[in-house]
C-alpha cells in the first residue's frame, strides 16, 4: 500500500470528523422532526466558546463540555421557539445562523491566534496494526475522531435497534401515532434537539481544539455547517449513509485541491473554491426526487427500481412541522 495514499486518507479521516459529528447530530435532530438550520453559526460559536473555555481552564475537556453546552443552548432556542412560541423553525434557525456567527466573532476578538490547549493524538493498540484500516482509521487521531466512529454505530443502533429508537423515529415520522402510543412527542423533540445540538457543538470543539486549532477571524470552519446540513439530506437521514457522505465529500474536496497542484491542469486558482459548492449541489441533485425522476426516465425499467432505492432520500415525514396534542 502506497504510503502517501495512506497519509492522505488518514488526514482525510481526521479532517472530516467534525463534519461527521455535526451531520450525525443534525440527523438525530431531524429524525425527531426538528430542523436545526443554525449549524453554520452554532458550530462556529461552539468552536469559539470551546476554545475560550479551554484557554481559561487549561483543560480541553472543559472546552469540549462548554462547546457542547453552547450547541445545545442554540438548539434549545429553536425548539422553544417552535414548540412554545409557534415560530417557524427555519426562520429562527436562519436568524441564529447569523447571530451565532456574529457572537462568536465578538467574543473571539481577544482570543484571535492565542495559543491554547490542543487535543492529544492517540493511536489504538492492536487496531492500529491492521493493514490499511489501522494506519487510516486507528493511528494518530485526536480522541474526537474515535468518538465520531463510536457515534456512527451508536446512533444507528439507537435508532434502529432499540425501543426508544422506535419512539424517536415515530416522533419525526408521524407524531400523532407516537402520541397515541403514550410518547410525549414534544418532550422527545426537546431531548433529541438538545442532543443533536450538543453534537453540533462537539463538532465545533473538534475544530477549535484540534483540526483548526485556536480562534481566527474569519473563522476557519465557516461554510461547513451548510455542508453538514446537505450531507444529512444526501445521507437519507441514515447514520451509515451520512458518514459515507461526509467522507465522500471530504475526499472529493481533497481531490479538487490535488487537481490544483497538478501542473497540467490550467484551472484559474480561485475557481477551485467553487468546487465544494458545486459538489454540494451535485450531491443534492443526486438524491432530489425531481432529478431522480428525470434520471430514471432515461434508464431501462429494470435499472429504475434499484436506482430509486439506492438514491431515495425521504425526509422524516413530519420534519419541520409542529405537533399540538389537542
Amino acid at each position: 500500500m502506497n504510503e502517501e495514499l495512506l497519509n492522505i486518507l488518514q488526514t482525510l479521516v481526521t479532517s472530516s470528523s467534525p463534519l461527521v459529528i455535526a451531520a450525525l447530530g443534525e440527523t438525530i435532530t431531524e429524525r425527531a422532526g426538528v430542523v436545526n438550520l443554525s449549524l453554520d453559526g452554532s458550530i462556529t460559536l461552539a468552536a469559539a466558546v470551546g476554545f475560550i473555555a479551554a484557554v481559561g481552564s487549561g483543560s480541553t475537556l472543559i472546552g469540549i463540555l462548554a462547546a457542547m453546552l453552547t450547541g445545545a443552548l442554540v438548539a434549545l432556542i429553536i425548539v422553544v421557539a417552535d414548540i412554545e412560541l409557534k415560530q417557524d423553525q427555519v426562520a429562527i434557525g436562519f436568524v441564529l445562523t447569523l447571530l451565532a456567527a456574529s457572537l462568536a466573532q465578538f467574543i473571539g476578538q481577544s482570543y484571535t491566534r492565542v495559543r491554547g490547549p490542543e487535543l492529544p493524538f492517540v493511536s489504538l493498540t492492536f487496531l492500529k496494526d491492521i493493514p490499511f484500516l489501522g494506519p487510516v482509521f486507528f493511528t494518530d487521531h485526536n480522541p474526537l475522531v474515535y468518538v465520531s466512529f463510536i457515534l456512527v454505530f451508536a446512533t444507528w443502533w439507537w435508532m434502529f435497534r432499540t425501543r426508544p429508537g422506535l419512539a424517536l423515529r415515530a416522533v419525526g415520522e408521524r407524531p400523532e401515532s407516537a402520541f397515541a402510543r403514550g410518547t410525549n412527542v414534544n418532550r422527545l423533540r426537546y431531548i433529541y434537539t438538545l442532543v443533536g445540538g450538543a453534537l453540533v457543538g462537539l463538532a465545533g470543539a473538534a475544530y477549535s481544539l484540534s483540526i483548526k486549532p485556536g480562534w481566527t477571524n474569519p473563522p476557519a470552519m465557516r461554510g461547513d455547517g451548510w455542508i453538514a446540513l446537505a450531507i444529512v439530506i444526501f445521507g437519507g437521514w441514515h447514520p451509515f449513509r451520512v458518514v459515507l457522505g461526509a467522507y465522500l465529500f471530504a475526499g472529493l474536496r481533497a481531490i479538487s485541491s490535488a487537481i490544483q497542484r497538478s501542473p497540467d491542469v490550467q484551472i484559474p486558482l480561485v475557481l477551485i473554491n467553487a468546487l465544494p459548492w458545486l459538489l454540494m449541489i451535485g450531491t443534492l441533485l443526486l438524491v432530489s426526487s425531481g432529478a431522480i425522476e428525470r434520471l430514471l426516465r432515461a434508464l431501462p425499467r429494470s435499472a429504475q427500481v434499484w436506482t430509486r432505492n439506492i438514491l431515495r432520500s425521504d425526509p422524516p415525514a413530519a420534519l419541520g412541522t409542529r405537533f399540538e396534542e389537542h
Partner: protein
Amino acid sequence: AQDDGLTFGMILVGPQSDRGWSQAHYEGGQYVEANLPGSQMLVFESLNSADAPETTLLQVVTEMVDQGATLIITSSDAFEEDTDVVAEAFPDVTFINASGDNAFTGEAPANVGNTMGQVEWAKLIAGCAAGLTTETGSIGYLGPLINGETRRLAASAYLGARYCYENYKGGDPAALTFTVTWIGFWFNIPGVTLDPTAEVNTFFDNGADVVMSGIDTPEVMTVAGQRAERGESVYGVAYDYAAGCDVAPGVCLGVPYFNWGPAYLDIATRVNEGTYTPEWTWNGPDWSDMNNPDTSSVGFIAGDGLSEENAASLDEFIAMLATFAEEHPDADGLPTAFGLWEGPLALQDGTVLAAEGEFVKPIEADNPLTIWYLPQLLEGMVGASE
C-alpha cells in the same frame, strides 16, 4: 484632535493579533507611540471583504480624520488603489501605503507615500534553512495570492533553498522539489481562499518535510507542530512577524520578518514636523545586527528546529550575504542587487531573466524583468505563476 502630538491611523487588513503581517504593523505603530512623544494611534483592524464587507476605506478614513488623524497608514497592498482615491479627498492628510509602489510609478497623488522592507534577504536565509534541513528533498511553499511581490518572495526562498541544498548539504539541485501552492489571499477566508490547514497537510502527506509560509497567518507552524507531536520529522518556516516561531518552536527553522517600527517612526516624525514629502522607500536590514529593533527593517530569527550543524551553515550563509550587500550598497535609497539573484536565471516559461554573470535589477521603471515586478516564478520551481 490634540494639538500637542501626532494622531495617526493604522488600517490593518487582518486582526491586530494575527501573529503575522497585521500584528507586525500594529506593533510598528506601537513603536511610534512609544518613541514619538504625544503621538497616538487609531487602529482599524480586519478591513477586508470577509470581516467587514460593508465597510469601505473611505468610511474608515473619514472617521479617523474626524478623530484628528493627520497621517494614515494603510498597511496592505490590498489598499493600494483605494488609498490613492481616498487620498484625493483628504489633501491635507498624509497617506502611507505599505508594500505599494504607486509613489514610485507616479500614479499616486502628492500626499501618498509608500514603504516596504527588503524582506527578500530574509527570505533567502529562510530558504537556505529549509534547503539545509530537508531530508526528502521536497519543500512546500504556501503562497497567498499571485502578484509581483509574492512571486519574488517565493523565488527568493527558492534561490536560498537551492543554494544551500547544493553547497552545504551536497544535494543535487535538480532533484530538489520546491512546490508553491497559492491559497488566493493573504489569509484564510473560507469560501474564498483554499484552506491553508488542508494545504499544509497535503504538502506533508505528499512527501514534503519542510513547508515555508508565505501568508500572513501561522497555519504552517500549527500543522507542523501537530505533525511533530505525532512523531513525524517535519519542519516549518514562519513568516512576517518576529515571534512567528512561538506557535511551534520545536519545529520552527526560523522566521523572516518585517520590523516596521523604524520606518514608521521616521515617517511619523517627519510628518509631525511637517517635513515629510511623500516618497517610495524600500528599506534593507541592518547587516551589523539584522534583529536590532531600532535599526533593521527586516530580520531573520533562527528557530529551535534548526540543527546545530545547519545553524552553523546558516550563519556562514548570512555572513556571505552580508558581504555581498556591502559590496553592492544601496544607491538613492534603493537596493542595487540582491544576493543569489545572479544569472543564469530564467523564468518558468524559459524567458531569460539574467544571463551568466549578470544580476537581476531590483526595480526599474518600465522594466518588468526586475525582482520587484517578477512576472513569473523561476525555472525549477513547481507551481502556478499566474
